[in-house]
């Protein structure tokens, strides 16, 4: 929908809006993210400062799931977006399918300085969130569930449960519940994961599909524990709900920045990519929202206070308790097969 709006807007306004400014004024890019509070936060923390520093104009667009739009835009041969902030797996898969530009890290020094696990030939980590075990403090005033094994233990921790209706992180959680160490998950033993999931399936009240839904389930007391994204849980907790979560055995996930193949402003986009993962800009992000910086150097800038850092998923000691999701595995044939298997698992 959003794509068409931009396309239509360009067609209608013609040279006036889309061509005119590009010819006369400064360089520009079109940046796409997921909207909502998250996009607002990054606008203040990263986008506006980057635009100012580079002297470029950043046009924004937003879409909850960028993947279909990336496919159609690049497929049509005339993409209108330049940079997309999207789950890292999309960048990798897009790279393999020729939809995403390969990055030259010599032009992205800030990215080159990041740990190798945080980047790919097509993308660089932009922010981190975590799929954590969240629970109601009303149901569990003490002795709360603290691991996926506890989540699976319906005798010791009776209560209603919810999981995400998606294999990402859910298979990882199942394997950890079955005793696999967080750093020994990949390549995932898919059969074992689904077998473990069959065990908990009868006890799952809701398989949620959107982050808002997961927050509402916990907030309304519809479920007593669930897998949820850390930012969603802390947002509900801030509003006064008696809920909490643990980073223990969380699954650390990231969105990354990547550039569409044949992007109209590729060179400016590369410049922006470097600026966007600058440690100081990155350190600004968690001041506005509960997500962790994609560049770990942000924690060395002293912008993030220690007590704030302790709440963030990618803070080094928190990260150490968690499993880092391997997007490379998920976009491999085995990963895609596991993703497809999810649909039949859900309907059986």
């Amino acid at each position: 929908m959003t794509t068409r709006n931009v396309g239509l807007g360009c067609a209608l306004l013609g040279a006036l809006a889309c061509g005119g400014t590009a010819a006369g004024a400064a360089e520009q890019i079109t940046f796409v993210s997921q909207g909502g509070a998250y996009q607002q936060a990054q606008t203040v923390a990263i986008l506006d400062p980057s635009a100012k520093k580079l002297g470029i104009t950043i046009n924004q667009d937003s879409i909850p799931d960028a993947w279909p739009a990336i496919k159609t835009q690049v497929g049509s041969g005339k993409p209108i977006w330049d940079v997309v902030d999207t789950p890292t797996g999309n960048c990798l898969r897009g790279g393999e399918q020729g939809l995403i530009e390969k990055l030259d890290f010599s032009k992205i020094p800030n990215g080159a300085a990041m740990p190798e696990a945080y980047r790919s030939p097509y993308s660089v980590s932009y922010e981190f969130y975590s799929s954590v075990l969240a629970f109601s403090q009303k149901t569990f005033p003490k002795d709360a569930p603290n691991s996926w094994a506890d989540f699976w233990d319906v005798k010791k921790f009776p209560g209603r449960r919810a999981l995400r209706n998606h294999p990402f992180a859910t298979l990882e959680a199942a394997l950890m519940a079955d005793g696999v160490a967080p750093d020994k998950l990949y390549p995932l033993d898919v059969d074992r994961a689904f077998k473990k999931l069959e065990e908990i399936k009868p006890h799952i009240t809701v398989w949620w599909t959107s982050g808002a839904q997961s927050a509402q389930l916990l907030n309304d007391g519809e479920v007593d524990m669930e897998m949820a994204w850390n930012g969603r849980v802390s947002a509900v907790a801030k509003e006064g709900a008696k809920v909490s979560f643990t980073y223990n055995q969380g699954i650390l996930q990231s969105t990354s920045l990547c550039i569409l193949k044949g992007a109209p402003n590729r060179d400016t986009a590369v410049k922006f990519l470097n600026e966007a993962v600058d440690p100081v800009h990155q350190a600004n992000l968690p001041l506005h929202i509960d997500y962790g910086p994609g560049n770990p150097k942000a924690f060395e800038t002293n912008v993030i206070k220690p007590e704030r850092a302790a709440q963030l998923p990618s803070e080094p000691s928190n990260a150490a308790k968690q499993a880092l999701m391997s997007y490379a595995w998920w976009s491999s044939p085995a990963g895609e097969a596991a993703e497809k298997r999810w649909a039949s698992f859900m309907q059986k």
Partner: protein
Amino acid sequence: MPTTSVPDPSKKHQRREHALMLALVSPALLVILALIVLPVGWLAWQSVDHDGFTLENYRRVFTEDIYWRSFALTFEISLAVTLIALLLGYPVAYLANSVPKGWSILILALVVLPFWTSVLVRAYAWLALLQRTGVINQFLRYLDVISEPLALVHNTFGTVVATVHILLPFMVLPLYATMQKIPADLMQAGASLGASPSLTFFRVFLPLSMPGVLAGCTMVFVLCLGFYITPELLGGGRTVMVSMLVSRNVELYNQFGAASAVAVVLLVSVLAIFFVVSRFISLDRVLGQK
């Protein structure tokens, strides 16, 4: 009536009128072509075009049992929703038809009013009513009718309840339109011949309202086939209807071809239903208030 063919000057006139009509509707036809025919054609093309012509996507739809299950579930739910909407909607339409004008406007307004609220808001409203800590469960617990909250939502039951609510106007309005056209004299005639009110209803009124029943049922059934948000939010993830299958296909198979194939199969089933129904009644006569 004599059927001799007289050289008819009005025939030429008629042809000219047809040409004029065609010219007048052509802008609308162009819009339909650009906004409906082309995209649907593109969609259908996507479902068979994947590095050359292939029926793989359709093979999957017709052989893999998750598709069968989804289609079966969708038809079951649509059927249930249609029947419930008919049972609830008929009395409402009947009442609106038999009370004085002012009252019937009020009743119809109450039926149409929820239209102005977004489907999403209504789905969440049902969640607030039906969930474990929701109004209904709290109330029943307060009355000591139940000790454990009932599972009213995050299942097929919740989906059906909310879908009926959302689609009810599509049942009531065609029914009301048809009932309006039934002459009141017929009922009086029936009564004057000695039939009891229930007999006149079942022998006269009900058969005459059948076109409305058929139209309303078709509307509700067909709309229900394509429902997405309501089962997504109230089905708890297990009520996978066909429309959800379309979105899952884009997510899971990462290709539009598979999703398009499902969409095309759904579209063809809907068209088939319309075709069959239109053999029995003319839908535009019921909907177009002629």
